[in-house]
């Protein structure tokens, strides 16, 4: 018997009629967490989030409560400046697809989380920085914020608590780098989005050089439930160091792609079962645990617990829990090239290794894809990757290196083949298309 391991909390109301409205959200018990939070001292709210063990869902898994605790609370120096909460809703990592569905289906979960979190860190202004391309999400979110104002959840003296908060929904202009928290801040301030030098850290001098907490959408959206049901309820789920539930996004060669909310520590095998398995008639070849910036894994890793520790022991990172599934029709060389093309396109240009390295790697990978690689190319790619990883200004280039290194680690043969045979001959591309008939053959590109 298969016990359904799903724990729909964030996604609880997604299938409701007009799930995005305040009414639906409130009927399902929404804004009770806020009510409770407003009766608590802000420091107690921080303590509750600390106790829950919630870790940032934006990729790095930094404990959320601890991050909030870094905000200076004294009345002098940095502490005396206004505090800001900034929600990172830039979601642009290839494969990552959780924040946007969440804001689309249940924007109030985020809005409520924003209010509670802002209250905790004593911010009276919060920003939600939304990736610019998703206009429909922006509209939903803006409407949700408006509803919250009208309902008295936002604005001056929220529910007579004396606490006031304004929320500003800000549309980015479509750059992956603007998801990096300091580039996001520059962009939000109206500059060109490029990462900032640290220190100073955002907790001390972030937005407008004031103490700022930056959290992922899912991190903030998890806060209302923690308040409402208590930290213990949250930490009872998940594994020892990776507490709670989270959204896993399955995409690619899988029967039922989508968001699966489950406790941390679930395995890909379990998730694939829930999602109807790999595309019918095919088998798993490789996958990313958390978007293209996390080293790929293979079918050896089907039973690795999908939590921070488990995945890192397997040599990758949990990242954004964006599980991209690739079956045996897929060319690793081609996939790597596409990813690196993305990083080349999205490199902000500030630092040399990322800017020049990704630009060069694309040329080498194109050669390999076309079967015209040289005997040196694999070593060259690995060496370039080594010269980029940990040498760049921000973590974007680490992602570039990660996908190249892991692809060569697990599928070196395909790169060797790239010295003689075009990838489209080895892996006819049409066969990878999601709805390709199982018997598709041919060498079309």
């Amino acid at each position, binding site marked *: 018997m298969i016990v359904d391991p799903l724990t729909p909390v964030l996604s609880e109301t997604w299938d409701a009629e007009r799930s995005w409205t305040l009414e639906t959200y409130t009927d399902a018990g929404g804004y009770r967490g806020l009510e409770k939070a407003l009766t608590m001292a802000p420091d107690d709210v921080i303590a509750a989030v600390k106790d829950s063990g919630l870790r940032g869902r934006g990729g790095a898994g930094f404990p959320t409560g601890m991050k909030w605790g870094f905000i200076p609370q004294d009345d002098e120096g940095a502490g005396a400046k206004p505090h800001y909460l900034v929600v990172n809703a830039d979601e642009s990592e290839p494969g990552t697809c959780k924040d946007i569905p969440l804001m689309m289906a249940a924007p109030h979960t985020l809005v409520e989380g924003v209010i509670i979190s802002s209250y905790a860190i004593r911010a009276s202004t919060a920003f939600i920085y939304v990736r610019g391309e998703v206009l429909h999400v922006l509209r939903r979110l803006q409407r949700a914020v408006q509803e919250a104002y009208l309902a008295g959840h936002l604005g001056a003296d929220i529910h007579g608590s004396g606490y006031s908060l304004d929320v500003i929904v800000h549309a980015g202009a479509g*750059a992956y*780098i603007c998801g990096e928290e300091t580039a996001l801040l520059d962009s939000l301030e109206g500059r*060109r989005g*490029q990462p900032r*030098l640290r220190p100073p850290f955002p907790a001390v001098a972030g937005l407008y050089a004031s103490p700022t907490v930056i959290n992922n959408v899912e991190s903030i959206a998890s806060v209302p439930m923690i308040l409402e049901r208590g930290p213990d309820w949250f930490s009872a789920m998940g594994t020892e160091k990776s507490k709670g539930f989270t959204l896993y996004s399955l995409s690619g060669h899988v029967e039922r792609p989508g968001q699966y909310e489950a406790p941390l520590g679930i395995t890909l095998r379990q998730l694939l079962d829930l999602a109807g398995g790999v595309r019918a008639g095919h088998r798993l070849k490789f996958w990313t645990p958390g978007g293209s910036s996390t080293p790929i894994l293979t079918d050896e890793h089907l039973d690795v617990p999908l939590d921070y520790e488990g995945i890192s022991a397997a040599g990758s990172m949990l990242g954004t829990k964006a599980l991209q599934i690739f079956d045996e029709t897929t060319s690793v060389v081609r996939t790597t090239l596409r990813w690196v093309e993305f990083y*080349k*396109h*999205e*490199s*902000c*240009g*500030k*630092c*040399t*290794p990322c*800017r*020049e*390295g*990704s*630009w*060069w790697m694309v*040329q*080498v990978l194109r050669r390999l894809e076309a079967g015209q690689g*040289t005997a*040196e190319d694999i070593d*060259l790619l690995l*060496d*370039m990757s*080594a*010269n*980029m990883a*940990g*040498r*760049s*200004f921000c973590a974007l280039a680490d992602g570039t290196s990660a996908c190249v290194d892991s692809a060569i680690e697990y599928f070196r043969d395909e790169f060797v083949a790239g010295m003689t045979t075009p990838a489209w001959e080895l892996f006819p591309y049409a066969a990878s298309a999601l709805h390709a008939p199982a018997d598709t053959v041919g060498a079309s590109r």
Partner: protein
Amino acid sequence: MTVTSAGGAGTEVEKRDDLVTLTIDDVEISVPKETLVIRAAELIGVQIPRFCDHPLLDPVGACRQCLVEVPDAGNGRPMPKPQASCTLTVAPGMVVRTQASSPVADKAQQGIMEFLLVNHPLDCPVCDKGGECPLQNQAMSNGRGESRFLETKRTFAKPINISAQVLLDRERCVLCARCTRFSDQIAGDPFIAMIDRGALQQVGVYEHQPFESYFSGNTIQICPVGALTSAGYRFRARPFDLVSTPSVAEHDACGAAIRVDHRRGRVMRRLSADDPEVNEEWISDKDRFAFTYARQDDRITHPLVRDPGTGELQPTSWPAAFAAAATALTRAAGQDGGGVGVLTGGRLTREDSYAYSKFARVVLGTNNIDFRARRHSAEEAQFLASHVAGSGLGVTYADLERARTVVLAGLDPEEEAATIFLRLRKAVRKNGQRVFAVASHTSRGLAKLSATVLPTAPGGEAAALSALGDDGEVALDSGGILMVGERLATTPGAYTAALALAARTGARLAWVPRRAGDRGAVDAGCLPGLLPAGRTVSDASARADLAAAWGVPALPSTPGLDTDAMLGAAAAGQLGALVVAGVDPVDLPDPAGARAALAKVPFLVSMEIRASEVTERADVVLPVAPAVEKSGTFVDWEGRPRVFEQVLSGGHALPDVRVLAGIAEAMTHLSRGLGFRTVEQARAEFAEVWFWDGARAHAPAVDAVEGPIPGTGEFVLDTWKLLIDDGRMLDGEPYLLGTARPATVRLSAATLHRLGVVEGDQVTLRTQVGSVTLPAETADIPDSVAWAPEHSAGVRLRSSLGAGAGDLVTVSAAGGASAPGSAGRQGGQA
């Protein structure tokens, strides 16, 4: 900072609690906290390769060339990744390994270097930077010999003009952001910025706002590759063919250290030298590019003497010219000769000024000497005699940087003393210094200093300064500095008020003249009541002391005439001769009167570099050497002597010192001539008379008078010279002139409205003498004041209007009446 070797006994480190001890490449070193690792490494002799790092710019950590390994961050734990040493501050107990001792660091640096070269065109053989290029050099020292890059390089159209003077070759650019950071942080002119992203990132300009900055040339110098070049120097020379000579900029009183590069007798370029005490590593574009004036076709190549027969100037020999001058001057200086006046201008070296000062007293027997070729007053002379002359080093750049509050009066630093401007901007940015300006409006430079303007119409400075003593907002105290410019001379009582303010608040006072030779001229005694080193003419013991030093029985005791009085006397036929050194009548308070005086005076000796209005009228013309062809000393506004050596030799011109000695020696009544012939001898003699501990002049005590009250339709004129204007020392540099600020009449919005004009429309300033038409510009200027540049875009305010700051003018819309050709940046004059 003390370096101790790891194994050694350890030299005693000065006990300073702000020192941090760390180990770099096994060498222990103690450095002040906050020091960056890249700088600490320099102290033990390790040069970590770098591109974006620049000690005077905020760190960015963009190029990643300076990576080092940190096996211990000071907490016992290694840092997991190589660190950019240009952004990493030292920590106690930190262990750093550079390329010198760490294969990881070495490999990381080689990797970055390879990436940088991937898209670099490697067109070194045709690149200005080749031979002095940090990329070239560091690719050799920290790069791999062979390229693994087989593909096609990224290309851009090249080059593009980012200003009239600066060109950008985007292919060569390594995107270090030094230029953009300089423009933003140092100059405050953020007209260039990084645009686009990834490998297409590039330095961009705002299409509609070109890179108009007085400091743009610094970007060329700090660019670590040949991406930025100057229109003037591009493709002209290779660094290894150039001979470099350290020198001092001659364009203002800032004393900026420069380096002059010449090849085969021709100056090819000038660079900023590194002088932390003075200009750090920056100079203005004028100091950098304005050097071609010394090789214009109108250079005087021979001594000239006017032929009594033809009335024409005829080339002659030096001895003949000396003799002609000596004879006539002897006659003029003698009984019934009418006397001689000496106008020295403000551009002489201290040695030259000293020679004129002594020449006037000893050879001509007169105190008729004045260096002020601009508006001046007796109050000013008194102020200079009592507070500037012989006072040595006073307020310094370092003091300026530390000052909490700086009050400016009669001085617009960006236009009139660019190095001061940069230092103030640094203090404002880094130390939160507050700048206040007694000025009519917020000029661009003042805006960049975030200065608070204490709105003052010209003529009102004395009252404004007096009121400052009670201004709780400015709160001037002993942590403050009051900087007064030479323009205060136009307002009676202003120097008196400045002195009173300084005395009352404890603020230190600094006088900032405009020209390089002004302060030296004051020290040398080129004023009618002043002798060298602060001795006064009226002080018998001072005269006796100097007479003894000079080996003459006595010095003239009658106070001399100042510039205005000399010219007045000459125009009235009461002066026998004038000796004029580098004075342009157009600068004088009354250009028409000056021209009349030059025409009238029986004998006129002109020491000049190039043909001028004075040489045209002179009886004897003696070609003197420009700064580049002689050695000398400029004394900057601080009172700091800035000695420089001769760059070019073999010219036909002589230093003024030598010319005056020649004339003196040709005078039969003098047995010893001037007492020196060379610059070095003059310098040595000046050093001997420099000591004077006798009485100094009394401070001036002049009452403020109310400035002119404008009647209906009248305005008080305010004016000063822009840094890049029509001055003759900018001749021959069209690219530099291309970056001049447009000449406009600055008026209040209300005035524009009243005149029925909008910004850009032509307006006419008028006096009884004449008129000037320029486009209007809005400024936060009092409604009763109109500002116009003194000497820009063809406008000669003083000549055309016969008016200067503080005088009344009318302003009207030029409308359709404005002459064709006077539109846009071109000013017209009637």
